[in-house]
């Protein structure tokens, strides 16, 4: 009898020991799993960052150190002069101004008119609305290459070549169809009561758009503003086609000019490239959530 109880107790102790061991093993396995995971994502992360670090490192080397093997990741002397030299090698300031001007003017046009059109599609029931919206969606699919040459010829005919107008003016005609689509989805989710109250107070449709829809849609507007900024700032083809005079070039064309200088100064070239990337990087770190906002809202999930 006594021995039976003892064995039961002993069994219990054994079972709990066993359980502990299983738990410990599980925990150990979890630690191993996590360690492997950290190693893998760290290696991937390093691979993702290396080109940037290589760029930064090269931008601070003078030409004698650039070609040194094995390379110095942190040069003994920081060649800060690469930056002012890079800016002096081409009309960098002028091109920064040109790029900024085109980007900002386009951004205003694209965001404002896309919002206007999206509001029209989201909030009004007019005849032909469905078919027009379908046409809008269809234009997203049409590659810009088809219209590239006819539009170029059109702008040439009216004498707009070698001015910023061909790059900016189209932005004021609804902007990009994707932006309109994105904002329409957003506006359609805004409750009707808001505008009804405003309408009773005697607001016109435009006032409702301007005083209610625009302010409460700031996150969505910021998202497309960022897309617009990225697109214009990095655009090479547009400026390449429409601009001819040296003083009208943008930073993107400016960067290609370093290649035609007598000898590629890699330190300077990387310094200049880094300066051109800087606005996009700053924007990314200050507005990270907007960079990913669009995916949730455009509802790509089929």
């Amino acid at each position, binding site marked *: 009898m006594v021995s039976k109880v003892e064995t039961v107790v002993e069994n219990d102790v054994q079972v709990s020991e066993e359980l502990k061991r299983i738990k410990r093993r599980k925990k150990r396995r979890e630690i191993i799993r996590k360690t492997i995971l950290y190693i893998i994502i760290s290696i991937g992360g390093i691979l*993702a960052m290396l080109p940037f670090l290589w760029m930064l490192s090269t931008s601070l080397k003078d030409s004698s150190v650039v070609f040194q093997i094995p390379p110095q990741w942190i040069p003994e002397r920081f060649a800060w002069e690469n930056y002012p030299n890079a800016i002096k090698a081409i009309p960098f300031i002028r091109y920064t101004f040109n790029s900024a001007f085109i980007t900002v003017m386009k951004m205003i046009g694209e965001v404002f008119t896309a919002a206007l059109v999206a509001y029209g599609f989201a909030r009004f029931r007019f005849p032909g609305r469905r078919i027009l919206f379908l046409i809008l969606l269809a234009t997203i699919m049409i590659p810009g*290459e088809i219209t*590239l040459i006819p539009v170029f*010829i059109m702008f040439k005919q009216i004498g707009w070549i070698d001015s910023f107008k061909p790059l900016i003016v189209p932005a004021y005609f609804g902007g990009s169809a994707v932006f*309109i689509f994105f904002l329409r989805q957003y506006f359609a989710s805004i409750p009707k009561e808001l505008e009804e109250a405003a309408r009773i107070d005697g607001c016109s449709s435009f006032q409702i758009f301007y005083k209610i829809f625009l302010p409460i849609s700031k996150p969505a507007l910021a998202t497309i503003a960022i897309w617009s900024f990225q697109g214009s700032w990095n655009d090479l083809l547009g400026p390449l086609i429409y601009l001819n005079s040296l003083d009208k070039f943008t930073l993107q064309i400016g960067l290609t000019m370093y290649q035609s200088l007598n000898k590629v100064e890699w330190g300077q070239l990387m310094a200049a490239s880094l300066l051109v*990337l800087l606005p996009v990087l700053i924007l990314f770190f200050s507005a990270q959530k907007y960079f990913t906002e669009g*995916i949730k809202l455009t509802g790509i999930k089929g």
Partner: protein
Amino acid sequence: MKQKNKLYKKLKKYEGYLFILPWMLGMLLFTIGPILFAIYIGFTEWKILTKPNFIGFQNYIDIFHDENFWNSLMVTVKYAVFAVPLGIITSLTIAILMNTEIKGIRFFRTVYYLPAVVSGVAVALLWRWVLDPEFGLINLLLAQIGIQGPGWLSDPDWVLPSYILMALWGAGGGMITYLVGLREVPQNLYEAAEIDGAGPLTKFFKITLPLMTPILFYNLIMGIIGAFRKFTDAYILGGAGNQGKFYLVYLYDNAFKYFKMGYATALAWILFVIIFLLTLIIFKSSSLWVYYESNDD
């Protein structure tokens, strides 16, 4: 007064047009008009400064006998065939790694996403330096483990792999779309599968992958369109011989270097037809492999 009200009501029905007017004008001026014009230009020989000369289908006939056309098309197709699937696999893998709840994961997400944020000439130049045969980062690293790296952009055999490598670097951009999808996979599906004794691989192929197909579908179409429209990197970096001459670069050369507007427009139409057909095929095939939740909408 009453009549005025009636008229007002009638007009009110059309008020929405006021708001969409900019887009309607823009569509006529910058899309529909130019498309109609482009149909005509494709049938002409037109050296921008001279008058257009109607030549019927001659451009299209010439294109099919043009070696450079076939070359640029093949370069682009080869690139797409490798870069698009590899890009999708890489993005999905990154997304799965980034979907784990471990400390510092937000930091890693930023790190992986960052390459996709930057683009343009600066990035092309960065890669030219990274891929430099003698002093570039990649060959220096390869030398450390005793491998003599190739000439990358200067070696015809390595031009396309160079471009694919560059594309994969930016694969973190696609990660975000998959992450959103992975978050939406109902966790009880995994739990049920675990009870049935499913391992990680079975769970991935039977649950995760089918539920990801709508996003794969989207990324496949976007990837193919993106591959066929590759321009900036290809224009800046070129490549050995014609091996780096992508379709759009050849189109650009024809239009804005040789000023063959008619020929270049015909090239654009062929590009359009190719992209359209590929998209159509993928759409048609989607019922076979894209999984839609039946209770959705």
